[in-house]
């Protein structure tokens, strides 16, 4: 594990609503990388983009350079992009990781979200859609599909069972409103629809989704630490 060399720079003013100035682009296909680069520059004009085709290089970059946003592919020649998500979350908690992938199934996406990814974008979507999703994410409105919502619900339900509470797990639980939002997403309602149904603004709904992603990450990290402790990795 490479140590983070950016610890002292963390905490500088870089709120999630501020424009993205430094961006990491992790993508192994050169054509797609070039296309993405163009697209990202259109959404965030003047941003500095660091490109990488391998997990190894990306982790090096993450420990050395400060990023506002990271667009991370999952299936890479030398490993999974999830490792980069984890590393970025460790080194730069304020940076936003977004998974950009060809995989739409929760088997691939859920681990990345647990590791701290803030939303995901499917690569093959038309340019306009991706642009819109990138803008939304940068404004703190990540997307959430029904299958991911179901998976998150199942995760927190399993955690709240009495059997696993005996593990002295730090209690990270969803609020009723967050659960309500998740349930409606799982049933196929879009976020604006849910906003209308619950009488909440679009921003409030987005905040709930953000909270859900955050809690999923916090809880998963605590779980991982506990598991590592149980296996004797930390003494």
């Amino acid at each position, binding site marked *: 594990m490479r140590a983070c060399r950016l610890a002292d720079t963390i905490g500088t003013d870089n709120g999630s609503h501020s424009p993205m100035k430094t961006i990491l682009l992790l993508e192994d296909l050169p*054509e797609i990388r070039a296309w993405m680069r163009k697209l990202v520059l259109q959404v965030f004009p003047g941003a500095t983009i660091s490109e990488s085709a391998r997990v190894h290089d990306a982790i090096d970059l993450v420990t050395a350079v400060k990023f506002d946003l990271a667009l991370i592919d999952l*299936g890479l020649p030398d490993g999974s992009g999830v490792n980069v998500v984890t590393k970025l979350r460790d080194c730069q908690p304020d940076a936003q990781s977004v998974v950009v992938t060809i995989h739409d199934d929760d088997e691939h996406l859920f681990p990345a979200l647990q590791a701290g990814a803030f939303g995901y974008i499917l690569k093959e979507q038309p340019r306009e*859609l991706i642009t819109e999703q990138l803008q939304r994410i940068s404004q703190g409105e990540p997307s959430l599909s029904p*299958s991911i919502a*179901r998976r998150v619900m199942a995760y927190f339900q399993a955690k709240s069972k009495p059997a696993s509470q005996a593990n002295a797990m730090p209690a990270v639980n969803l609020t009723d409103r967050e659960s309500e939002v998740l349930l409606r997403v799982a049933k196929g309602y879009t976020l604006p629809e849910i906003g209308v149904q619950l009488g909440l603004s679009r921003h409030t709904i987005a905040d709930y989704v953000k909270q859900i992603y955050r809690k999923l990450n916090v809880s998963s990290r605590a779980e991982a630490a506990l598991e590592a402790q149980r296996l004797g990795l930390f003494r």
Partner: protein
Amino acid sequence: MQNRRAMLLPFSSQYPRPCNPLRAPLPWLLLLLAVLVAVLLAVVQAVLLAMLMTFGLASAHAAGASKPSSSLLVLDTALRAHGAGASFPTAAPATTVSLPDEWAHTRGGQDGPAWYRVELPRAGSPDDDGLYALFIEHVCSNLEVYVNGERVHSGGRMSPPYTNNCNHPQLVSLPSAMLNRDSNTLDIKVVGHALVEVGSRQRAGALSALVVGPQSELAAHHARLTALQVIAPQAVGATLLLMGSFMFVLGFMNRRESHLAYFGALSVGWALVDMRLWLRDIPLGHSETEFLVGAMLGFITWAAVQFLLRYAGMRYRLVDVLLPLQCALLSVTLVVAGPQHLYTLASVWYGVLALEVMAASAWHLHHQHQRRHVRSVWVMAVLLGLALVAGVTEFLAQWTGTRPLAAHVAQLVMPVVFVLVGLRLVQQQGRALSHAVQDKAVLEQRVREATAEIERNFHQMAELRVEQVTERERKRIAADLHDDLGAKLLTIVHTSDSERISTLAREALEEMRLSVRGLTGRPVRLADALGDWRAEVVSRLAQAGIEGEWEAPEDLPQTLSARAYVQTTRILREATSNIIKHSRATNCIVTASISDGDFLFVVQDNGDGIAPDTKGSLDRGHGLASMKNRAKQLNGQCLVESGPGYGTVIRLTLPLDTAIQPS
């Protein structure tokens, strides 16, 4: 399948095998036990007979002793002289002795032949048949009877080794031809051993009182006494020998039941000591015989002590070593001390051995009591108590002149106790055997169950493994498709200049993803599927600026097969694409419902509709034809109702039995 068979074989062929070691010794044991039981039944019969005879005798004897028949003449004084010749030594000094005459009291250490002379008064009343007889209850070791100087009876060898008649009552006919009318002289020559030369008082030289009377009366008395003193002990001794042999074999074959072997040795040893009743003329010198008897008692003690300890489940290394050593020591001391000190030494030894057996008995009962074998304690306590009473009686009888009836009964009681203990052991063996048979049945049942369980588990594991392999293979194919085909299609999507090719490539990518999804074969909950479909359809319509309405039941319990889920997704996606691309509709209503076992989807738009003659024009790529085809594959149907200006209604009907699998 082949592999599973091959791997199953070892299970099925190995598991029944452990039963066989159980099976092998059982018939053998059963046979032995059956024979033992038969023998013991015979023994019980013999014992009961002996008991009956003993009781009958006891009453007869008591009657005879208390009021002697008037015709019987009891002679209790005699003239005694020493001499080895063939007639009463008139020259030697003679003394008058009272009968019974025990040499231990009256002759000191002297052991040469002794002559007794009595004058027979006019015998009996001549009114009966005139047959007279002399009855001698106890003579040791042997005698010859002379009437008026003529020898009329001999008990056997009169020179060493003497015939041993100590247990045999003697009946001597007195021929009337040889009897004088008024007075007759009866001479009896007795040979025997001094007390110092024998191990037990009952084998020291002695002559009981003489009874003269009618032969018929005396013969009956003689027969009864012979039955008690000779025949009953012989019968019991023989059965003891047989039973002991069986027990020994049984215990020897099964080392865990070593107490049986020791009990067998004890029984056989006791029977061998009693052999003297059968063999009155042992072709061995007197001192050799006495030595053998003494050594045998050491051996019997060894067996008895070990039996009592092992029977209670105890085993001491020290005892295992000391008892044989004691046997050896006993023999050595008997040899070293020589025949002249036999009685003293044997008495000491008998005391020691008796104390050992009593201590072992007490320890046995104590230990069994601690192990809470209540029933065993009671049975053994009663039997050991009987043996103790018999032993004490016999011991006391040593000091009471000629042997009283109680001594004879006591002598008989000891082997009878052994037989009863043997019965008890056989009963326990039998019960253990039946338990073993039951246990074996239970064990076999368990082995069968375990085998079945293992086979079941194996099947489950095999199935699980097949599932795992399938899953792994699916993931590999999915990864390959995404990495190779997916990457290439993606490149086309984002680099092609033609919008149409980009769209086709995007659709191909989505198709590929669905195909991979269909590979899983994992059923999808209908409620989840509806959620996915709603999210996709409604958001796509919203992006295209079409108002979408979705009506579907919630929380349906059914599940869809992966294939049905994938095909329905494709049909819905195609229908939505058609509306977005061609219909120019502003509103679309999607209704999902379940009726009559069918799953029904209705997609209705308010667009331009499709002219009947140009129905095919809507069908770009796979279009409507492929929608209908997919529905047909699921045994359902896809109907398109449309007309210019009326919009389009697509009715998709899928039978639940193929499309929707119950959960």
